[in-house]
């Protein structure tokens, strides 16, 4: 059996080499497809598709790509993206059952909706412009409303709370975005074989979207060549993580369900994508090491691993790798064909139980208070089982064991947060800021201009059972145009990100691996992070049908004020009026005479007082005055026009 495997491997290399030559990828563009399958403790199966596409550094701009998607490389060149990640997620990652301390969860457990972050390689002043352009480009590329992230009220510039220290980083998320096949199709278009061939052929839309959780992710990073004159290479990493409940017929409730690829996805793999350098399928079984044999050097032991009393694999793995707490079976799908499709199956024979390794603290977030005026947001960090194992690792200089936790949170501007009301409770006892709060960075939100951001670094003692952070806010009142069509549904507050800067997740494989991008990315130390729930905040709405009524009623009140006050001020008692009239009758100045004549003219009555001047002179005088007035008004209008257009 092993001989067969050994004879296959060179063949595989040969084939991929031939493919490379055939497509002229002497520049070194590489594509690899991988699929990781992992049964989860709560009777579900995780399928993690991983596609990696590498374009090496080259000195020519606008060159032809053989495998690498042109759209992405243009994107990188145009907006000078250093690193970028875009994820579309539906469903919520279950940190308790699906793990929170392995690279898989720390990289692929994403917040609901769309999340986008990018680091740019442009001067500081142009970062925001690049971000805006990038959101529009991605919006067109992925058929999603990513362009809503363009407005400064929806993104933030985290300094250190996000885990990446860069002042050219922008982060935004759209929790409301519905993710569906229309987002998956353009994502698949970036793959050389689309979903026609290879592992991606498994992506049957109904089975993918039937799952409990699916997250499609696109991560790209540029690799500096280090050489003068050469541009930078791009690594495009596309992953799709799906959690599916296998259909089971067994009545036994404590028995893990048995499944096969065809039962999960309704399809089988009929051969690898010919353009791929490597196409592998991995099966990871966790928590199966303690009672298994210590050394697996011999063939029999290896055989035991995949066909034992607990479970059966339908196919023989090409290799078995052991990790500190799990087993990894590696299958190469190159040998599968139309007549002999690759259909990996796992059959459980005995009830089996295990648990995933969890993050040091489990984070959840909730709203407090009722009513539509104000409330409070609380983030609760609860100790998990894995905490005991971790304690003792992170000793500070004074010998205390501490867990560091970074909290990064974006507040939309209509959530008006009072940062001075920040309260921290550790084990139900309120702590002052200096005791647990190591660092805090706040950028308050400005109404209708920018969103608020809170970055905190907590240093909690290892024996902590729970820690709670609460912060109060007032709900904003919006203009009617700012409400979405379904205003009464409420507004979403994006997920908070909790990361543990002193904890890193990695799988340490005992043996040197072949060049599998997925496994090498697992081997790298990645920051343990978890996203909290999205919160739905109902805001009060004005009456949307009222604008005309409100305008007329308010203006009526102003008319009432103005009219009645002026009426009171100008009212005179009769005798005074008579007195004034007699006064006016006695001596009437030239101006007054003119006025009375004018009013008489307007009223169409003959002039009361006899006039000494001739009517012709009078009319000419009037007309000259009229002309002067007209000129004045016209001049004012012209000036107004001039100044208003000038601006």
């Amino acid at each position, binding site marked *: 059996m092993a001989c067969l495997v050994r004879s296959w491997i060179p063949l595989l290399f040969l084939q991929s080499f031939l493919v490379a030559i055939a497509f002229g990828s002497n520049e070194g563009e590489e594509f690899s497809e991988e699929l990781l399958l992992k049964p989860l403790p709560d009777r579900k199966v995780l399928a993690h598709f991983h596609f990696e596409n590498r374009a090496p550094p080259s000195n020519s701009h606008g060159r032809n790509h053989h495998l690498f998607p042109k759209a992405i490389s243009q994107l990188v060149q145009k907006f000078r993206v250093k690193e970028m990640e875009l994820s579309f997620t539906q469903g919520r990652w279950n940190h308790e059952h699906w793990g929170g301390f392995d690279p898989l969860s720390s990289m692929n457990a994403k917040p609901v909706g769309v999340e986008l972050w990018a680091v740019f390689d442009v001067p500081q002043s142009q970062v925001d412009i690049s971000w805006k352009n990038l959101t529009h480009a991605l919006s067109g590329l992925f058929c999603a409303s990513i362009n809503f992230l363009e407005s400064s009220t929806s993104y933030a510039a985290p300094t250190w709370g996000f885990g990446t220290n860069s002042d050219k980083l922008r982060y935004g998320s759209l929790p409301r975005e519905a993710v569906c096949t229309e987002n998956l199709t353009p994502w698949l278009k970036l793959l050389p074989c689309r979903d026609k061939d290879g592992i991606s052929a498994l992506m049957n839309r109904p089975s993918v979207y039937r799952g409990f959780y699916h997250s499609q992710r696109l991560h790209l990073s540029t690799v500096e060549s280090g050489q003068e004159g050469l541009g930078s290479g791009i690594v495009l990493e596309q992953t799709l993580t799906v959690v599916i409940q296998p259909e089971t017929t067994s009545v036994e409730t404590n028995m893990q369900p048995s499944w096969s690829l065809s039962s999960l996805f309704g399809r089988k793999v009929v051969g690898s994508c010919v353009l791929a350098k490597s196409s592998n399928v991995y099966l990871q079984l966790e928590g199966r090491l303690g009672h298994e044999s210590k050394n697996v050097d011999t063939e029999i032991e290896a055989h035991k691993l995949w066909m034992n009393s607990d479970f059966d694999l339908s196919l023989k793995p090409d290799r078995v790798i052991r990790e500190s707490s799990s087993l990894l079976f590696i299958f190469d799908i190159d040998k599968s064909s139309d007549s002999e499709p690759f259909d990996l199956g796992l059959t459980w024979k005995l009830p089996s139980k295990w648990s995933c390794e969890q993050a040091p603290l489990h984070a959840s977030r909730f709203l407090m208070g*009722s*009513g*539509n*005026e*104000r409330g409070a947001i609380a983030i609760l960090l609860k100790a998990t089982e894995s905490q005991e194992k971790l304690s003792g690792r992170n000793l500070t200089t004074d010998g205390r064991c501490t867990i560091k936790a970074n909290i990064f949170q974006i507040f939309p*501007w209509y959530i*008006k947060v*009072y*940062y*001075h009301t920040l309260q921290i409770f550790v084990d139900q006892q309120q702590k002052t800021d200096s005791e647990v709060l190591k660092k*805090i960075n*706040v*950028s*308050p*939100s*400005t*109404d*209708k201009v920018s969103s*608020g951001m809170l970055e905190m670094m907590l240093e909690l003692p290892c024996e902590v059972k729970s820690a709670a952070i609460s912060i109060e806010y*007032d709900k*904003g*009142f*919006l*203009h*009617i*145009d700012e409400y979405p069509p379904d205003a009464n549904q409420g507004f979403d507050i994006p997920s908070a990100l909790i990361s543990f800067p002193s904890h890193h997740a990695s799988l340490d494989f005992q043996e040197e691996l072949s060049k599998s991008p997925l496994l090498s990315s697992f081997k790298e130390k990645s920051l343990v992070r978890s996203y909290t729930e999205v919160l739905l905040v109902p805001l*009060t*709405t*004005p*009456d949307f049908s*009222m*604008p005309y009524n*409100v*305008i007329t*009623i*308010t203006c009526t*009140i*102003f008319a*009432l*004020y*103005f009219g*009645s*006050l*002026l009426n*009171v*001020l*100008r*009212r005179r*008692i009769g005798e005074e009026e008579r007195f004034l009239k007699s006064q006016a009758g006695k001596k009437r100045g030239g101006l007054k005479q003119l006025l009375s004549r004018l009013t008489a003219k307007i009223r169409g009555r003959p002039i009361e007082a006899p006039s000494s001047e001739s009517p012709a002179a009078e009319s000419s005088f009037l007309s000259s005055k009229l002309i002067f007035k007209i000129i004045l008004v016209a001049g004012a209008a012209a000036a107004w026009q001039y100044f208003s257009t000038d601006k």
Partner: protein
Amino acid sequence: MAEEQNKKPCRFWIWASASVVFRLILISFPGNLNLSSRPEVSTPLTSIRRLAEGYWLKQASMSPYAGSMYHGSPLLLSILGPLTVQSIKGQPSHLLCSLVFVIADILSAMLLRGIGQKLQMAYGLNARLLGFLKSSRDKVILPCGDIAALVYLWNPFTIVSCVGLSTSPIENLAVVLALFGAVTRRVPLAAFGFVMATHLSLYPATLAIPIIIILGYGLDAPPIKLFLQTRSVENEKSSTSTVSKQAKSKQTTHLPFLWKTVAHFLFWVLLWSLYVLVLCALSLNKYGGLEEMFKRTYGFILSIEDLSPNIGVFWYFFAEVFDFFRNFFLIVFHVNVLFMLLPLVIRLKHRPCFLAFVYLAISSILKSYPSVGDSALYLSLWALFVNELIDMKFSFFLFCGYLGISLLSPVMHNLWIWRGTGNANFYFGNAIGYACFQIVFVVESVSAMLNHDRALRRSSSNHGEVKS
């Protein structure tokens, strides 16, 4: 008579101290009785919570105006800010701030009493000059100072805004200080109060006109024509020296305008405003300076950015109005405050204190972010003129209106915000009612004052005729 005179101040002090004790009892309750979050009490400009947030931001070496929380004066921040974080053990957290507001209220009441006493004296003097007091002995001059002070101290609006930790007691104190300084002719004090009031809430800038008139022409008096009439009657009656009669009538047709005092006042205004601006600039040195301050305080007042509900009508109007017309209506509404200044000053130039009351009442109706604290101020200023306004119409109706609105407002707010059974129109309707009652109140006060002057004229002419 003398006993009564002694008794009255005694009774006044009892009532005044009772109101202070009442306030002290109220502030010792924990959580300010939730008054500090009432939209009627604390507006975005006067809320102590926002002030605390601004102070926190400043302590965190950020501009206090970062974010859209604080919109008040930087001076208030450095005075009240430290008090918001300090708390005495075992006492409610905002006790120190509350004590400051109680003291501000007491000071305002005392100053109002001082103004009232001056006005009362002037009223008595004028009445004697015109010869009413001799003829009708039964007509007693009410002690308007005491009444105004008690109205201020016992007005539920004042109590609520004092206990509810809004900064309006301090704004009111500055306004009253300006008037007191003008009435007692302490020019630097008047200038200081005027500058502070304008700095704190912009609208008292209109008070420049009444203060200048007080300083230039003197206190409230019946129209000058009346004195001329009575004097001429008297002169005709006792025409001993025809030469002096001519001279006298010439002297009194034009009351002398004291240019010197007014110039003095303007000089002090300039000095104090420079002082205030320098202090602000110093405290905001690192955070954008004065430009930022004007943008975030006066700019915020004038552009009505915050649409959270209050007892005014603007919030809903600007939440509903089409964006295209927003600037137009902003200009129209703000100009409405200014439109009435000139007609009022023409008709009421002989009564500058009353003019000040009318200006304050109008600005509290047309304010961007009105609160009941503003009403408390003009209601107690109104009480200064009880002698003149005794024949005011609709006073019972207005009293019931104010009462009804202040009871309905929390109900409507509760229905809309907390229960969700009502909608925004409920609260807006309430605000409309409040605006209407205030308008009727102002109009009726002005009309009553003008009628009073008319009655004086008629009675004095009758008096003269009878005598002749």
